[in-house]
């Protein structure tokens, strides 16, 4: 039973900036790979895990392929997951040459997540994706990952400074063109609304809030951190209230649409973001446990 205030069809088209998206329930970057996995899976009542999805935000790509961090990369806690994958990805060249055409052919609505270490690189990445996707119907936008906490060269700190955020948004085209430009914000700052305002002022059409929280877990057998790099990005059910607080801060203090992400595992969780004013949501860690999680949430929010 849906609350009385919920009257939105999450599978109806809606607009972010210049672009119309097919729905408001998305999957988060790094949590559903490149949107090419699991198409053959079924569940009772579902022909595929992609039913009803508004967008798959693809796994973040970098200019060159990355092998990622050493194992172990993933630690489970009672209510969440700590990861240090290290941006393992196929790199820009394979992404535009192989992944994007396959997504287009499979009619998967997607947002391409890109990460770089300086504004100039963001410019190159954005331009390459824009060129490859110019005629694609199912490519809806870019999400700038300014906040991956697992990269040694400082991706984590990168997105903490409003001026740097603005420089990256400008470098990525400043929102020109006919696709949406989103920025994924780190929650590991004192004033997240300042980052959102900087992104919007530089031309971003929306912000995705939030990325993972910095976390650490200890292996009691060795007395050392579980992850070789000590810290990881913490996600999953445990961060839902933390992420909601960050989203609320942005909604109240910045004039920019928010795509809510963090700890969503059910239709009720997603509704909490919509109640605060989010225009769409992304399902992250829960998608790893259940490939149909986002599809189930979309169905439930649509039919009650």
């Amino acid at each position, binding site marked *: 039973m849906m609350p009385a205030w919920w009257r939105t069809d999450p599978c109806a088209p809606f607009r972010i900036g210049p672009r119309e998206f097919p729905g408001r329930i998305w999957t988060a970057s*790094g*949590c*559903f*790979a490149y949107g090419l*996995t*699991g198409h*053959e*899976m*079924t*569940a*009772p009542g*579902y022909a595929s895990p992609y039913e009803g999805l508004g967008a798959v935000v693809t*796994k973040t790509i970098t200019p060159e392929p990355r*092998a*990622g961090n*050493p*194992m*172990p*990369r*993933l630690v*489970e*806690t*009672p*209510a*969440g*997951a700590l*990861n240090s*994958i290290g941006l*393992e990805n196929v790199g820009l060249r394979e992404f535009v040459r192989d992944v994007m055409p396959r997504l287009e052919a499979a009619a998967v609505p997607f947002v391409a997540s890109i990460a770089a270490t300086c504004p100039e690189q963001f410019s190159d990445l954005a331009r390459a994706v824009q060129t490859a996707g110019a005629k694609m119907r199912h490519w809806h936008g870019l999400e700038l990952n300014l906040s991956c906490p697992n990269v040694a060269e400082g991706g984590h700190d990168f997105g903490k400074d409003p001026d740097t955020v603005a420089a990256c948004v400008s470098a990525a085209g400043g929102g020109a063109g006919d696709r949406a430009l989103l920025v994924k914000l780190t929650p590991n700052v004192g004033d997240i609304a300042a980052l959102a305002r900087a992104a919007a002022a530089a031309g971003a059409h929306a912000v995705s809030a939030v990325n993972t929280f910095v976390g650490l877990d200890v292996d009691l057998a060795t007395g050392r951190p579980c992850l070789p790099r000590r810290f990881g990005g913490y996600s*999953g*059910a445990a961060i839902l209230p933390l992420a909601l607080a960050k989203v609320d801060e942005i909604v109240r203090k910045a004039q920019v649409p928010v795509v809510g992400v963090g700890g969503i*595992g059910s239709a009720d969780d997603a509704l909490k973001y919509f109640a605060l004013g989010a225009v769409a949501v992304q399902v992250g*860690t829960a*998608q*790893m*446990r*259940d*490939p*149909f999680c986002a599809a189930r949430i979309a169905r439930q929010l649509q039919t009650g």
Partner: protein
Amino acid sequence: MGPTGIPSPCSLVGEVMANGPVSSGLIEMHLRVPGGSAGQPTFFPGQFAMLNRPGASAWTFGRPLSILAWEGGVVRFLYRAVGRGTRELAGLGAGSGLTFLGPLGNPFPAETGGLRPVLIAGGVGLPPIWSWLQLYGARAGGPALACFGARSVEDVPWTLVGDRWRVAVEEALAAGDGRASTGLVTELVTAELGDSALDGACCVMACGPWPMLRAVRDLAAARGWPCWLSLEEHMGCGYGVCKGCVVPLREPSADVGWRPATCCQEGPVFPVDALAWDVMQPEGSP
């Protein structure tokens, strides 16, 4: 059914029918799952499923368990209670619900190309090897040699490991106990085969702990036999999206000579030569 004839994975809710010890350390669970068309293969040996608790009590990640058998709507698993999840699994009684995602992963080859199969399992690595012997053992090139290794004679699931198996245990046997030999399972295999002129006439399939897999690799390499290994890795998603279970695969075109591959999606069964052994940590990861 996928393009390769492998059944497509299903997300289902199952019901525990039975769940109890079959040796001092191993537990067998029977899970009833809906569906399954008659006459269609439900899984292939080497494939696994992700199990989780339903609803709000779900773990952040499911637990990957290798499929022992899947007949008449009942999936059988063999596991060891080693961590939080598997200890909770061990406590589930008949009637408990579990979510099931499977079958997942790539199986062992069904055909041996006329080669005599040498099947080697260690401890909780028994399910894929056991199911291979059940399904394909009779039609392979020559009688299969099936060997199982365990720490002690109490750790051997004798209801599963019957007459068709040779058994090795690491702890000394009681005087007069002729059910097993003492030593490592790879030593048993070597003894069973002798160092006769069997070169090129066998192929090896194995699943078990890393030290055993390394010994199996060496045993096969010394004789020039093709060899497939099923790897056990900690997994998050089980279907290739979280990138938390990577193993290094040889990739001559890559700068470093290898690339990370998800154990769950590209494996868990790999041809031994595909693995980049030189960059592996002792437990298999890059």
